[in-house]
């Protein structure tokens, strides 16, 4: 597996680990306030400092990561399942079914997601993650479906699929055993992209206050931080850790995606190995002459 995928996967794995055991490691109850009125910088008692009401930032981070990661994964699963269902059906069946499904997908693709989310979630305050995941999925499955449909269309005309159809193999078997295995990396990439979209979007929504405040998430941390003027107060420990976590989480997903890209398209690999004997080589340069190279 290419290096990028490994690094991305490792970081993402780390986040999942924290999501699982984080809350157990939290030293304090993230919502517990003390009497103080000022945010405290990182110290021995609070490794990441406190908020302006005395809540422990580290605990909030550990608990909040879980809900953000879980929401991302949930949305990823639902949206990818939807995308695969629609994409493979449209690509495989072709004809009217394809036209219809493609139209639906394209319409969803073009409707601006965030404004609609702001509107829907703004009026539909809910406590649990699942409804949010569902709404995010409904607006996010279209891209993956389009990509998978395109790939299915290509595969459908490959020799081995045609052969399977000729021999009368049943449709579901063809899809399950001939087509899907060849789309695994595509489906994986689509999943990763959806998780990224879900994480960034949910954090954005929480940040502007359109999320449930019964639990903690990275986005709500940022919401409170800005609401309490953390920036103006210089309380960087309050908003940098959640923001940085989101950035790192996002970056790990992007790297994973690149890695998956490189698996499918070998030309993209070893971007740095364009140095032969120390000299950098560009695509437009003539073939180098290095005599005596064994």
């Amino acid at each position, binding site marked *: 597996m290419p290096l990028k995928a490994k690094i991305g996967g490792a970081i993402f794995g780390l986040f999942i680990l924290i999501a699982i055991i984080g809350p157990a490691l939290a030293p304090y109850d993230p919502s517990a306030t003390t009497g103080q009125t000022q945010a405290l910088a990182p110290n021995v008692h609070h490794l990441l400092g406190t908020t302006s009401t005395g809540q422990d930032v580290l605990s909030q981070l550990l608990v909040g990561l879980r809900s953000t990661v879980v929401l991302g994964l949930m949305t990823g699963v639902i949206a990818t399942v939807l995308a695969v269902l629609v994409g493979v059906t449209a690509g495989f069946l072709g004809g009217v079914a394809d036209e219809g499904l493609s139209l639906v997908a394209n319409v969803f693709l073009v409707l601006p997601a965030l404004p609609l989310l702001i509107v829907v979630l703004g009026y539909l305050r809910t406590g649990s993650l699942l409804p949010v995941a569902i709404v995010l999925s409904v607006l996010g499955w279209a891209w993956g479906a389009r990509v998978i449909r395109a790939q299915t269309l290509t595969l459908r005309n490959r020799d081995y699929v045609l052969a399977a159809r000729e021999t009368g193999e049943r449709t579901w078997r063809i899809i399950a055993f001939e087509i899907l295995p060849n789309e695994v990396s595509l489906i994986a990439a689509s999943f990763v992209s959806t998780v990224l979209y879900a994480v960034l979007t949910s954090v954005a929504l929480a940040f502007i206050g359109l999320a449930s405040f019964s639990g903690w998430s990275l986005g709500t941390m940022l919401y409170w931080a800005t609401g309490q003027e953390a920036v103006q107060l210089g309380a960087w420990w309050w908003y940098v850790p959640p923001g940085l976590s989101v950035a790192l989480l996002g970056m790990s997903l992007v790297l994973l995606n690149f890695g998956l890209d490189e698996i499918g398209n070998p030309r993209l690999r070893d971007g740095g190995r364009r140095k032969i004997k120390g000299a950098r080589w560009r695509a437009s340069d*003539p*073939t180098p*002459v290095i005599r005596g*190279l064994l």
Partner: protein
Amino acid sequence: MSTPEQTAVGTAPVTEEAAATALPVLEIRDFSISFATESGNVKAVRNVDLSLAPGEIVGLAGESGSGKSTLALGACRLLRPPAVITGGSVVYRGRRVAPGGVEILELTPHELRALRWREIAIVFQSAMNALNPVLRVEAQLGDVIDAHLDLRREEKRERLDSLLDMVGIPRARLRSYPHELSGGMRQRIMIAMALATNPEVVIMDEPTTALDVVVQREILAEVAELQKELKFAVLFITHDLSLLLEIADRIAMLYGGQMVETGTAEQIHHGTAHPYTRGLLNSFPSVRGPRRQLAGIPGSPPDPRDMPPGCPFGPRCRFARPECSTVDMQLLPAEVDEPQHLTACPFVKVGETEPAPAAATASHGEVL
């Protein structure tokens, strides 16, 4: 359409002596190319000698993966990293360059750009992939004229028109895009493009492999006509040896990145020396002549990463013997009084009969 045996084209230079004494227009000596991959350096082409006389048609034959395209593209320094030229010389002696020729391996990128196409042009295998899909034909033919020739607008227009006439395509097609042309037309455009600046050497890399047989014949006949008229040298790369026997003056056989036999078409056809060439010739039937059992060559081409020592053909050769793994692959004369016929196998004589195959039955029509 003439039968294969009658199309004996390719009588290029004026006299035989002139061909023998004129300095080659392209001379490749001891040429080696390696690929610097993650798993080590892989030698794709080893110590190859190949030369092209002015106006001569030389065929370069070999299987897929034998290194023919690598050799030709490498000689023009068109290979991309991780390819590296590790040794040898490529000298070009066209009429327009300095007397004594230029060493291509030592040119600066600027000089190389001036030399490319103007002197040595390439006709690529798949015209659909080799033509820019978003440019019109006139733009693609035109930009190479702009890059090398200094023509006024009317002169350039005339040249474009005459190029299309030359390959038998209606002039209106100048305004077309590549995807609007048929396969045969696209290949003709490629040929016209190659000849646009009057090069002295045209490298044709499997130019007709992607086309059906009828179109193939037409295009080859046209190329032969053009070659007779404009007198450019041709390096014709293909895996189809039977084709070369008809059109080429000389043929060079490449196996596992190394040259195994060179000679005139006549010598190769009737005085085949190297066992590999023999195997190839035995793999296709002739239109006339008695029926015979096709033999083919058992086994598969060698993996460049894992070459056997000595002669790369050893593992598949019927004449193989222990000394084959230490032979140095130098090209030596195959027959007396025939200086142009060279072979890398010092053991097998021309006309020597094959030993009986060790396996029970010969493999019919083994695909190469």
